[in-house]
């Protein structure tokens, strides 16, 4: 039987606020345990939550970016469960009335576009961390993360393959970083994903029973976890079994999912409106203010790059993969006046290779946009050849100054003086009588050899165009 996969994703994004959702403690990652957990976060009696305006601002910003309806009135609810990483005994979340209602995101898979619905996005607080290692049979609790604002983004079950799920997740990741509402760091857990996965026979309208996969903290693992789970469910169904609705944990070491708890023994969260928090009411002015802070969104930027700079889709998508990258490119264009395609190549090929090699991103590149511009200017005015430019780039990367400084220090200025080039050519020809004879006897392939020798003799500085032309004349019988 042919099976169809159905996937919906729930993504938790940590909002980039300085302070927590309901307290004025810091949210910085990596602080000493419990040094950023105040009386509200550790739930001492008598404390009251006060909501962070910036968290509301960021949630609305996201809602506007996905074309969603913003609820002018949303309600915080208590989600009740006992676990020491949230000492209140409940998590403040939104249930019936989330801040962001239905929206959508367009993904691109193998060259075709698909719209993925977003059911809702709601505000809630993060929990602390439990450390189960070596505390004489006890569990250690760090509440620094407790109370950090989260925006949980819930998609419709619109994805039909692990590939689509990854494309959606990457798109969402790119978007929240463009909006500067989340740093997207999956390792540190500021962008986390749960996947609801089910299968059904092709053509069937009803959804199959789903399993919820937790603990997937990289794009690669999302793909692998879903693929494993789909296989597992199909095998189960084809063997006459049944999928049970349950939460499963993905284990990346074993590349397998295992059951965590089934829905039957699932928790009853007993949501109810939090009496400590009146409804969050946002007026039109608030939303209009947020609208003013919206940056150019990735899709719009991509389309503009293709049109304005005549780039192909690949270059445009690499150059708009982050806001920093796009800004870098446009700054280089503006400062160097270089041809957009040439500038694009230098960034997507040369620069990307070095960034990958040294595991850096564009924001921390030792070659700044200004330095890249200095290089492209010298390339355009023929001071250096393309080959030498690579050498200059590497020197700039290693901290030897901008292009002009490197060219001067290393004496890399291109030789464009015809008489000087001729001198080099004469010397090369004199040294290679045998090759000259063969060339003149018809072995034209040797032309490349002569070019190589001349370039070598000039330490790569002779203008290649001129070398070609002059050499042709000199080699004539």
């Amino acid at each position, binding site marked *: 039987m042919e099976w169809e996969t159905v996937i919906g994703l729930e993504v938790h994004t940590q909002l980039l606020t300085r302070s927590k959702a309901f307290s004025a403690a810091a949210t910085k990652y990596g602080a000493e345990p*419990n040094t950023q957990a105040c009386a509200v976060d550790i739930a001492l009696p008598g404390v009251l939550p006060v909501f962070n305006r910036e968290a509301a601002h960021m949630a609305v910003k996201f809602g506007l970016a996905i074309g969603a309806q913003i609820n002018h009135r949303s309600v915080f609810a208590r989600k009740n469960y006992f676990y020491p990483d949230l000492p209140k005994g409940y998590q403040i979340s939104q249930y019936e009335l989330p801040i962001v209602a239905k929206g959508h995101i367009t993904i691109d898979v193998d060259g075709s576009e698909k719209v993925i619905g977003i059911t809702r996005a709601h505000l809630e607080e993060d929990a602390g961390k439990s450390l189960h290692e070596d505390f004489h049979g006890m569990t250690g609790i760090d509440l620094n993360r407790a109370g950090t604002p989260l925006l949980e983004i819930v998609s419709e079950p619109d994805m039909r393959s692990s590939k689509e799920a990854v494309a959606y997740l990457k798109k969402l990741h790119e978007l929240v970083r463009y909006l500067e509402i989340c740093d997207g760091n999956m390792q540190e857990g500021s962008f986390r994903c749960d996947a609801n996965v089910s299968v059904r026979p092709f053509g069937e309208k009803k959804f199959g029973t789903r399993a919820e996969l937790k603990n997937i903290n990289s794009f690669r693992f999302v793909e692998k976890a879903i693929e494993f789970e789909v296989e597992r469910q199909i095998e189960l169904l084809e063997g006459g079994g049944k999928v049970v609705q349950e939460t499963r944990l993905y284990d990346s070491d074993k590349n397998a999912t295992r059951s965590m708890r089934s829905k039957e023994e699932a928790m009853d969260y007993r949501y109810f409106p939090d009496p400590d928090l009146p409804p969050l009411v946002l007026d039109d002015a608030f939303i209009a203010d947020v609208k003013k802070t919206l940056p150019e969104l990735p899709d719009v930027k991509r389309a503009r790059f293709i049109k304005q700079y005549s780039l192909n889709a690949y270059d445009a998508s690499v150059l708009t993969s982050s806001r920093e990258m796009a800004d870098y490119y446009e700054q280089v264009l503006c400062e160097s006046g270089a041809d957009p395609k040439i500038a694009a190549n230098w960034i997507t090929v040369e620069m990307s290779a070095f960034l990958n090699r040294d595991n850096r991103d564009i924001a921390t590149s030792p070659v700044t946009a200004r330095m890249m511009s200095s290089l492209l200017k010298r390339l355009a005015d023929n001071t250096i050849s393309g080959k030498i430019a690579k050498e200059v780039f590497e020197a700039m990367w290693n901290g030897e100054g901008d292009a002009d400084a490197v060219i001067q220090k290393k004496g890399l200025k291109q030789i464009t003086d015809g008489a000087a080039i001729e001198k080099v050519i004469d010397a090369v020809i004199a040294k290679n009588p045998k090759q000259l004879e063969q060339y003149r006897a018809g072995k034209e392939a040797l032309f490349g050899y002569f070019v190589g020798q001349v370039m070598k003799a000039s330490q790569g500085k002779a203008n290649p165009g001129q070398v070609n032309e002059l050499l042709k004349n000199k080699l004539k019988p």
Partner: protein
Amino acid sequence: MSLDREQVRKMAHLARLTITEQEAASYAETLSRILVLIEQMNAVDTTGVAPMAHPNESGLRLREDTVTEPNLREKFQKIAPSVEAGLYLVPKVIE
């Protein structure tokens, strides 16, 4: 609508409360009386009335996003039953 003892026991479990058989019986009765009150409210026609989430409908007061809480870990941990390496220690929990 009324609650039976089994439902009361389940609620007590969710709230992590230990109750005796006798208490379960008496709670079943008293809690059911609350449900009677709710049934009366349910009978009211509320078509067109927005659900009230909070008696104070003036809306939430918002706070500016600034960090003003100092690190009081030492003070807080003095009153905690067990701490180590800056962590609060609790009986082992693992899912």
